[in-house]
């Protein structure tokens, strides 16, 4: 289907919205009524038609506005995009992966014409038509990673693999859940995850690393992660935390349904062919509580998950102070009925809320 791109903002007046279609395909992250860390990896080989899993790089109604937001973040703070000198080849790998995937998966929106190393890339939604020489940096307006990630939703971490570890050696990070690429660049897998509570003790990162080191070309993987954000703010960076942190105090029982957003990351992992690097796209989806509550199953489940979440996790995810208000709101959408397994809303089969 043809996508109607929203004209919206993720800052200031926050005109961001989800259409009914976007709500239905929202990647709700809880497959059961409780949550604890796990290495919840699966193959990234498509999924239900029109779900966020269907294509290699999901393009949705927020694409054009998200790319405008990214350009603004990079203009304000160029350090959000960095690539250590040895990562340029991986940047070309990433450019190829995204151009090939998007032109094959969305032929009405993107075209890639290749004649040897002479490539022409057409991005219709953003009005781009560039010809360049593959592997020749002088023929692009930015480095290859920056060029293509200015045209792809979600953050991109490009990880070098050496010494049985993964190293955060390049990335474009403007829609992050409160971590700094500029500070974490050059760190290994355990170091950049160091501030995460509980998961180290549970052996999560050791197992996750083992899995990721063995990802093969053509066999990408994926998982979901989540947090909460007040207002549909994409750039919840530590750099700007002194500016946006105060927004958490603007939530009231009256506005919580529209202000409080579940923030879900679709994380995917692709092996890159020339560099043997691993690219780790982190695609952020936002959905307001009131939109989520249109799926009775999600209302019931979100209440139970947030109610039973360990305090450390609610603190780490930054909503411990607002949790009582969040639970007051969500409890109205939990009638105690059982829920079906899995993340999908099951709108046809799940019962309506009992009042």
């Amino acid at each position: 289907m043809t996508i109607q791109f929203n004209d919206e903002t993720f800052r200031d007046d926050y005109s961001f919205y989800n259409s009914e279609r976007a709500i239905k395909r929202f990647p709700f992250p809880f497959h059961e009524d409780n949550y604890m860390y796990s290495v919840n990896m699966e193959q990234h080989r498509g999924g239900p038609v029109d779900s966020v899993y269907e294509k290699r790089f999901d393009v949705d109604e927020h694409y054009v506005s998200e790319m405008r937001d990214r350009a603004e973040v990079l203009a304000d703070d160029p350090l959000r995009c960095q690539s250590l000198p040895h990562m340029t080849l991986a940047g070309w790998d990433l450019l190829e992966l995204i151009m090939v995937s998007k032109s094959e998966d969305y032929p009405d929106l993107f075209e890639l014409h290749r004649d040897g190393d002479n490539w022409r890339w057409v991005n219709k939604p953003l009005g781009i038509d560039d010809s360049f020489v593959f592997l020749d940096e002088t023929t692009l307006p930015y480095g290859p990673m920056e060029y293509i990630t200015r045209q792809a939703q979600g953050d991109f971490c490009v990880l070098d693999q050496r010494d049985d570890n993964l190293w955060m050696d390049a990335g474009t990070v403007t829609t992050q859940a409160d971590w700094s690429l500029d500070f974490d660049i050059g760190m290994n897998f355990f170091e950049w995850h160091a501030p995460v509570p509980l998961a180290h003790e549970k052996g999560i990162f050791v197992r996750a690393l083992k899995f990721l080191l063995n990802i093969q070309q053509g066999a990408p993987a994926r998982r979901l992660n989540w947090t909460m954000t007040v207002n549909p703010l994409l750039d919840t960076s530590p750099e700007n935390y002194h500016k946006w942190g105060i927004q958490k105090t603007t939530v009231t029982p009256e506005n919580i349904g529209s202000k409080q957003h579940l923030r879900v990351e679709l994380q995917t992992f692709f092996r890159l062919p020339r560099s043997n690097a691993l690219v780790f796209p982190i695609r952020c989806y936002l959905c307001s509580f009131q939109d989520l509550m249109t799926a009775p199953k999600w209302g019931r489940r979100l209440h139970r998950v947030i109610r039973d979440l360990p305090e450390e996790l609610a603190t780490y995810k930054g909503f411990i102070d607002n949790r009582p208000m969040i639970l007051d709101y969500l409890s109205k959408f939990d009638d105690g009925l059982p829920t079906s397994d899995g993340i999908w809303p099951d709108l046809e089969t799940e019962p309506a809320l009992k009042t």
Partner: protein
Amino acid sequence: MSKFTFPTSIRSRPVYGTLEERDGSAHLLIADAHGAEAILDVATPLMMEKAHIIYIPKGEAFEDKLRALNPASFYAGPTYAAAEARIHKAFVDAKMGLQVYLTGTEGLIGQAQYAAMEAGIPHTAIQTEHRGSTARRMQCVHCKGITEDVETDPFVCSHCGLNLFVRDHYSRRRAAYQGVCIDAEDPGNVPQAKGIYE
């Protein structure tokens, strides 16, 4: 007492050892303040024949004792920044088999370790030992400015003036810990500063 046992912490936080003499084609020893004591402990006449000591006293009176070790080359300078060009040249000129010994404050060790890494010195040839002040070199995540020798949590960023809390999250490339605004969600509500390890 110049030795301090750091509490266990998160995975990005550096850990330090105890210097020991190793066979090497040359020895580069970089220290500040009480780091001099670790050098005095590890130094041997044989090692000093091929040793270059770079020392930043920071008001401590160890310079004469270090000089008396009679290293092949000795330098004492007022600050790390003043010594930086010399340190950089020592790493760039290094030959295979150089052994590196870094000791003193975390700020000194971190900066010299990064300089060594940039010059391609293998990490297996670098030893570190913490001595003296437990003050930290902090980077403000907001303005990116570095504040040296931070002893309290929270502290005021010496560049942008925000009230920052002291994280254990550490970047080897920045040679600094991360400082994050403590009163962003409740401006003006800044707890009383206390020692980082109190």
